[in-house]
């Protein structure tokens, strides 16, 4: 039986791993390559690298780091951040990425997902959506969660999946950084709407939050988190052992 994936996310800026709480206030954690190897050895099922660099120098540094990581880490790598064109897909796939995650790039250019899926296959294209409740409605936010696009989130996700997005990362801005658990209500709405893998992001604070996630929503395929892994609050080996004890299929 397919196992539930545990995915640490590394936000990379100027060659270093950072993590924003509610997307504000960055703090340095470690070297991306060292951290990626560490997570792979600890049993992470996949890694996400987000490039949050704005400059072209930083972008070059990011692809160098990605290349180095792909030479040493042999689990799937998803890359996101600054993906606006098919050329950006090409750039990171050549450096060893397996999947490419699009967020603002798809909002700016809604045909990007379809073009990329045609060239690289649906399995290569991941939609990442930053979602926040506004007056009781799930809305898609752009620019790292700062700008309300006004788009209704479930319709947006359905449209992107229809265009060829092979997986969806649902990042709840409402629960991100709060560490009180994943946004079950939001994830449920997404799981009901699409039939591609759904990756839950935002809100994990402890092992029990992952157990609740997978037990409550069997259609969720993976849990993604950053700082709780980076700061050792949740050890991946402990998390997976607890998943196994709860009969949640996991790769030990």
């Amino acid at each position, binding site marked *: *039986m*397919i*196992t539930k*994936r545990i995915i640490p996310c590394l936000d990379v800026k100027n060659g270093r791993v950072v993590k924003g709480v509610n997307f504000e206030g960055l703090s340095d954690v470690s070297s991306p390559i060292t951290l990626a190897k560490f997570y*792979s050895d600890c049993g992470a*099922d996949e890694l996400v690298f987000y490039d949050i660099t704005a400059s072209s120098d930083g972008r070059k540094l990011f692809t160098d780091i990605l290349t180095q990581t*792909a*030479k*040493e880490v*042999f*689990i*799937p790598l998803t890359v996101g951040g600054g993906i606006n064109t098919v050329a950006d897909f090409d750039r990171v*796939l*050549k*450096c*060893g990425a*397996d999947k490419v995650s699009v967020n603002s790039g798809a909002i700016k250019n809604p045909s990007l997902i379809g073009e990329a899926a045609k060239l690289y*296959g*649906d*399995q290569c294209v991941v939609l990442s959506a930053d979602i926040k409740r506004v007056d009781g409605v799930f809305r898609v936010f752009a620019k790292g969660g700062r700008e309300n696009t006004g788009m209704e989130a479930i319709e947006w996700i359905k449209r992107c999946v229809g265009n060829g997005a*092979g*997986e969806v990362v649902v990042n709840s801005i409402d629960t991100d950084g709060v560490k009180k658990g994943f946004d079950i209500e939001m994830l449920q709405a997404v799981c009901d709407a699409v*039939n*591609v*893998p759904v990756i839950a992001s935002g809100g994990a604070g402890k092992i029990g939050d992952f157990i609740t996630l997978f037990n409550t929503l069997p259609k969720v*395929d*993976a849990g993604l988190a950053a700082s709780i892994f980076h700061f050792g609050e949740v050890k991946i080996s402990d998390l997976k052992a607890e998943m196994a004890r709860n009969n949640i299929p996991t*790769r030990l």
Partner: protein
Amino acid sequence: MVAIVDYGVGNLFSLKSSLLAIGADVVVTCDKDVLKSADSIILPGVGAFEDAARKLNESGLDSVIIDLAASGKLLLGICLGMQLLFEKSYEYGEHKGLGLIKGSVKPIRDVVDNELKIPHIGWNPLIFKKENPLFSKIHNGDCVYFVHSYYADNCEESVIATAEYGAELTAAVANKNVFGCQFHPEKSGNVGLLILKAFVELKENEIC
């Protein structure tokens, strides 16, 4: 020396890196003479069957691979590279494969219910069906990483491992010196590296 067949399909960076990581002497090539001189050959592949089969045919590499396999050369197909080893595929039509392993490639959707997500993507435990030197360094139940929407069918004789995903899907096959993995060993962590290591350490004359 292990040669990765470069026929313009997909990205070979990770595969090459994983072979270097296990200390293999590796070359990426489309040169027939280099393939002939290699101890073993890996046929990779991602994307569509028809496109890949056409590229192999246009480059003339299909007959080279068929001849080398017939001569006993060790050959490992990975993902679409495994599917190409079969007689034919029903991916968007009907297309001829290399015919090195009996069987055909069909949509997973044909054998699983509509609720199940396609592609089959993620880590899934291997269920061993036969002893095989490819698995000499790993264990029954070890997880490997899959990404595919089509599976090999009617190949009972050559199946050495399956994985459960709504149905029991072919995960690995072997026919004497010809091997195939539906999953990606180069993305399957240590287990994957151990499978690749077992393959590159095989000797032609040890395979009966």
